[in-house]
C-alpha cells in the first residue's frame, strides 16, 4: 500500500500532469491563466531548430559514448581477470576509485587537466612535440573529452563485467585451448557470449544516460552550450526551456518526447536481445 501511494503521488500523477501541461501554454511567471492549446507545442517541437540541433548534439555524443562506455569496462575487466596480472586486487581497487568521486568535483578536475594552457594532457602531448587542442573549446574535441570524463564512472560496470567473466566455467577455456584457440578466439567465442547479458544491461543503462545527459555540460560551462552549441544537449535544452525561460508547457512536451523516444529505443533493444543475448542457464 505505501508503495502504491508513493507511486501515484511521486510518479503517476506528476507524469499525467506533465502530459496535460504539454497541451497547454503553462508559463511559470505569467499572470495569464493556463490555456489549452491542443497540439501546438507538439507541432513547435518538430519545427524547432534548437530541438534539431540538440538532438544532433546528443546523437553525435552518443555515437562515441555508447560503444566506448560498453567496450572500455569490458576490456578493463578482461585485463583484471587475467591470471597473469600481477597485483590484481590493487588494480581493481584503483580502477574503481574514481567512480566514488562526486561527478561535479570530477568535472572541475577535468577542466584543469584538459586546460589548453596549464592542463597536464597538453603538457604531456607537448613532450612528444604535439600541440594539443583546446579540448573544451573545440567543436570536435569536446565529445572525446566528455566521453573521457564519463569513463570515470565506469567502476561499477567494470565490477559487473568482472563478476560475469569470473562466472564463465574455466573448463570451456581449457577445452578451447586444447582445440587450438588463441587468446582472441577464446575471448570472442567464450567470454563475449557469456557476458552478453551484461553488455545488454550496460547498453540499456548507457543509452538512458545519454538521453538524459545533463550534469557534465551544465557544470562545464553553466549550460551555455559552448563551444558554438556543441554541448547544447537535449536534456539541457529541456532544462533551459522549463527552468530558465519558464515555458513549462513546451518543456513538458520536450520531456514527453524524450520519454517516448527512450521507451521506443529501449523497447527495440529488448526486442533485439533474443537474437544476441545468451543466458547461461538456458536449455
Amino acid at each position, binding site marked *: 500500500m505505501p508503495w502504491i501511494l508513493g507511486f501515484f503521488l511521486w510518479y503517476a500523477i506528476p507524469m499525467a500532469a506533465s502530459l496535460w501541461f504539454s497541451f497547454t501554454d503553462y508559463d511559470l511567471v505569467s499572470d495569464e491563466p493556463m490555456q489549452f492549446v491542443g497540439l501546438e507545442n507538439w507541432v513547435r517541437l518538430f519545427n524547432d531548430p534548437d530541438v534539431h540541433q540538440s538532438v544532433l548534439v546528443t546523437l553525435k555524443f552518443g555515437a562515441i559514448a555508447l560503444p566506448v562506455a560498453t567496450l572500455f569496462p569490458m576490456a578493463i575487466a578482461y*585485463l583484471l581477470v587475467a591470471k*597473469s*596480472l600481477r597485483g590484481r586486487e590493487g588494480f581493481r581497487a584503483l580502477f574503481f*576509485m*574514481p567512480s566514488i568521486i562526486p561527478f561535479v568535483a570530477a568535472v572541475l*578536475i577535468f577542466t*584543469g*587537466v584538459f586546460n589548453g594552457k596549464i592542463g597536464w*594532457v597538453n603538457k604531456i602531448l607537448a613532450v612528444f612535440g604535439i600541440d594539443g587542442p583546446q579540448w573544451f573549446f573545440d567543436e570536435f574535441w569536446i565529445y572525446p573529452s566528455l566521453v573521457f570524463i564519463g569513463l570515470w564512472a565506469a567502476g561499477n560496470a567494470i565490477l559487473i563485467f568482472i563478476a560475469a567473466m569470473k562466472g564463465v566455467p574455466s573448463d570451456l577455456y581449457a577445452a578451447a585451448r586444447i582445440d*587450438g584457440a588463441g587468446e582472441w578466439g577464446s575471448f570472442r567465442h567464450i567470454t563475449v557470449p557469456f557476458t552478453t547479458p551484461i553488455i545488454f544491461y550496460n547498453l540499456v543503462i548507457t543509452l538512458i544516460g545519454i538521453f538524459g545527459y545533463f550534469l557534465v555540460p551544465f557544470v562545464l560551462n553553466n549550460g551555455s552550450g559552448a563551444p558554438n552549441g556543441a554541448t547544447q544537449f537535449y536534456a539541457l535544452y529541456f532544462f533551459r526551456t522549463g527552468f530558465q525561460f519558464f515555458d513549462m508547457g513546451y518543456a513538458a512536451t520536450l520531456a514527453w518526447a524524450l520519454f517516448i523516444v527512450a521507451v521506443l529505443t529501449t523497447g527495440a533493444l529488448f526486442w533485439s536481445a533474443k537474437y544476441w543475448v545468451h543466458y547461461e542457464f538456458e536449455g
Partner: protein
Amino acid sequence: MTATVDRVEVEKVTSGGGTKRRLRGGWVVTGISGLVLFVFLLPLGYMAVTSLKSEQMISDLEAPILPQSSATFEYEGEQLDIYTVPMPDGTERELAMLQPGRQTSKFIDPADPSAYVGLRYESRT
C-alpha cells in the same frame, strides 16, 4: 580423441618454455594495465598535486607540474620572496623583493645584499 591427447602431451613436453612465456606474458599484461591505469588516474594525480599548489602557482603558465615552495632569501631576519626580474639592459636577474609597490618595487641581490639595497624597479602595471 587421439588428437586431443596428442596436444596435451605436446603441451607437457614444452612446459619449461611455457613457464617463461607465461612470465613474460604476465609482465606484458601488467605493463599494459599499468599504462591504462596511469592515463585513467591522471586527473586524480592532477587533483592531488593541485591541492598542494599555491593559487599563484596554479595560474602561472610556466609553473612546473609538481608543487614547489617559492624560493626565499633571509634578510635582516625577514624571509623575502625571490623573483626573476627583467633588467633595463634586457638581462634577467634573480632578486629578492624587499618592498613591493604598485608602481615601483625595491629589490636586493641575494648574492650581495648591500650592493643593491634601494634598487627601484618600475613594474609593468
